[in-house]
C-alpha cells in the first residue's frame, strides 16, 4: 500500500516535462542525483573487459551519480550497482581537521548543513534503507552529517518492476512501490508518470515546478492511468513476494533464541570475509575513524566504510578478538540485520535489494539463508528433515 493514498493529490508529469524539471533544477544550481547509464566500454576499463570486445550489446552499468545534464537521467529502472548510501554516508568523509600550535590544538569543523538537493528515480529499497538507518543515526548520538544530508535531500522514488530472483523487499517490510524514507513516488503510465507526493518536501517540489504537473483530480484519463499504475505496482509486489516469503518476526525471535544453533553457526564457512556485501548494502552503516596526518602537526580525522566481515572488526586493543573466525562474523551479520536491530529499533536492517547475493562470488545467498531460518522458525518439523 502506498502512503500516497492517505495524503491525497496525485499529479501527472510527462516524460519530457520530467526531463525539463531536471534541467530546471540543474539550471538553478541544485544538485540532482539520479541513476545514470554508464557505458563501461567508453572508459579505459574497456581494455580489461571481454564484454566490451564481444560483438553485440555492450554492457551498461547503472550508477547513482550527480547529474551534469538532464539528458543523463536514466529511467530504465535497472538497479544501480551501489545504493544511495554513499550520498548520505560517503565512502570516506572528513569529520574535522586539526592543526597543532605548540601545545594547543585548533579544530577545523566541517559544515553540517548542506545545500538542498534532489534524488530522482530512486529505487524504493534504497530510500527505505535510509529511513531504517535514520533510527541508529539518531539513537544515542545525533549524527549531524547524516541528518544534515537527509534534511537537505528531497527523494523521488520510481516504482520498481522487480529486478530478478534475488530481490525480496516484501519479505522484509517494504515493497517495489514503497515511499518509506522518500518524499514522492513516480509510477510509469502511458506518456509519462503519476507523481504522488507523500511529504511536505515532495509537495514543495510540485509547487516549485507547478507548470510541469497536472493534477489528476481534474484530468481526463486519470482513472485509466490510476488503474494502470495500480495494476503494475500490484503485479510487481506479487512477483517479488514469490521470491521469498518469511515471517520476519518469527525469524527475529528464532535468531534471538538460537544463537548456538548449527544453522546459524555454520553460515560463514564459504564466506571469505571480503566485505563486498557490506559495501553494496544500503543499510550497512558501520564505519571506522582514522586520523590522517598531512605533514607535521596538521591532519584530518576521517571516517570510512568498515565491515563486520573483516577479521579485525572486533579486534580489541588487548589482542583479544571475540569474533575471530568467519562463522561468528557471518552469524553476526544475520543476527544484527534480522534480530538485534529489529528488537532495538523495530526495523529489519535490510530492504531486500538483493545486492549482497548478487555480488557475493563465494555463493552466499540471502534468500536461501532467510528461507532456511524461516523454515526452522515456523516449521521446525520440516527443518529437521
Amino acid at each position, binding site marked *: 500500500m502506498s502512503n500516497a493514498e492517505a495524503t491525497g493529490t496525485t499529479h501527472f508529469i510527462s516524460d519530457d516535462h520530467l526531463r525539463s524539471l531536471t534541467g530546471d533544477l540543474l539550471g*538553478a*544550481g*541544485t*544538485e540532482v542525483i539520479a541513476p545514470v547509464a554508464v557505458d563501461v566500454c567508453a572508459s579505459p576499463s574497456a581494455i580489461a573487459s571481454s564484454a566490451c570486445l564481444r560483438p553485440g550489446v555492450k554492457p551498461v552499468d547503472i550508477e547513482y551519480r*550527480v547529474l551534469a545534464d538532464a539528458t543523463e537521467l536514466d529511467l530504465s529502472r535497472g538497479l544501480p550497482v551501489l545504493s544511495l548510501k554513499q550520498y548520505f554516508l*560517503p565512502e570516506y*568523509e*572528513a*569529520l*574535522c*581537521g586539526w592543526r597543532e600550535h605548540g601545545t594547543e590544538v585548533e579544530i*577545523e*569543523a*566541517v*559544515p*553540517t*548543513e*548542506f*545545500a*538542498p538537493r534532489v534524488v530522482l528515480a530512486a529505487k524504493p529499497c534504497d530510500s527505505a534503507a535510509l529511513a531504517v538507518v535514520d533510527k541508529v543515526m539518531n539513537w544515542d548520538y545525533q549524527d549531524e*552529517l547524516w541528518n544534515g544530508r537527509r534534511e537537505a535531500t528531497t527523494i523521488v522514488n520510481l516504482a520498481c518492476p522487480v529486478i530478478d530472483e534475488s530481490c525480496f523487499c516484501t519479505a522484509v517490510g517494504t515493497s517495489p512501490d514503497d515511499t518509506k524514507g522518500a518524499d514522492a513516488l513516480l509510477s510509469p503510465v502511458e506518456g509519462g508518470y503519476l507523481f504522488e507526493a507523500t511529504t511536505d518536501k515532495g509537495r514543495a517540489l510540485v509547487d516549485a515546478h507547478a507548470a510541469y504537473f497536472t493534477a489528476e483530480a481534474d484530468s481526463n484519463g486519470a482513472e485509466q492511468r490510476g488503474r494502470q499504475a495500480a495494476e503494475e505496482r500490484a503485479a510487481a509486489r506479487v512477483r517479488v513476494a514469490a521470491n521469498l516469503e518469511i515471517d520476519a518476526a518469527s525469524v527475529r525471535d528464532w535468531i534471538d533464541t538460537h544463537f548456538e544453533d548449527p544453522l546459524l553457526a555454520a553460515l560463514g564457512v564459504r564466506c571469505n570475509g571480503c566485505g563486498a556485501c557490506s559495501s553494496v548494502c544500503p543499510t550497512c552503516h558501520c564505519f571506522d575513524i582514522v586520523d*590522517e596526518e*598531512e*605533514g607535521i602537526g596538521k591532519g*584530518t*580525522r576521517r571516517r570510512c566504510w568498515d565491515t563486520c566481515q573483516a577479521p579485525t572488526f572486533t579486534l580489541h586493543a588487548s589482542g583479544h578478538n571475540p569474533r575471530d573466525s568467519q562463522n561468528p562474523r557471518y552469524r553476526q551479520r544475520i543476527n544484527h540485520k534480522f534480530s538485534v536491530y529489529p528488537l532495538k529499533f523495530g526495523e529489519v536492517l535490510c530492504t531486500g535489494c538483493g545486492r549482497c547475493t548478487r555480488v557475493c562470488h563465494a555463493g552466499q545467498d540471502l534468500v536461501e539463508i532467510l528461507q532456511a531460518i524461516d523454515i526452522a522458525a515456523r516449521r521446525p518439523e520440516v527443518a529437521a528433515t
Partner: protein
Amino acid sequence: MSDAIDTSGAAANGFEPRITAFVCNWCTYTGADLAGTSRLHMASNVRIIRLPCTGRIDPLFIIKAFERGADGVIVSGCHPADCHYTTGNYHARRRFAVFHDIMEFIGVDPRRMTFSWVSASEGAKWRDVVNEAVTNVRALGPFDAYRALAPEDAGVATPAGPAAEVATPAATAKAEAS
C-alpha cells in the same frame, strides 16, 4: 669530474625538487660523508635517511615519500658482493627491479627514482648521483600527482545556502569526493 652543479632551469620557475634518499649505513652513507668531508660541491636538495642495509628498504618507504610530497627518491647501497650483511643488497636488487618496473607500468616516471651502488670510498660518485638526480627531477617538475590524490582539507561538504546558489565545479568536485 667537474665540481659544477647544473643549475639550468633553476632560476626559470624557481622550482627546487625535494629528494629523499634511502641509503645503507655501511657504504653509501659513509660515501656521502666522505663527499662532505672532501668539501665536494653538490646540490642541497637531498634529505638522507640512513638504514642498516638496502635489504631493509621496503618499497613502502618510497611510496610514502611520494605520498608526502617527495619529487624524487634515491636508493643507494653497497656494490653487489660487498654488502656488510653479505646478501642484503642481492635481495634489494630483485625487490627494486620489480618495484621500478611496476611503478613505470602504473605511470610513475622512472626518472624520479634513482638506484645506485655507492661504496664508502666513492664520495665523488655520490656527488654525481645526487647532482644527476636533482637535475633530472628538476627538469621533470614537481610530483604533486601522488600527494594530490587525497583531499587536503577537512572542508569537503557543500556549504549551506539557498537552492539558487550556483554549484561551482570546485564545489561539485568536492561534493563528489565527499
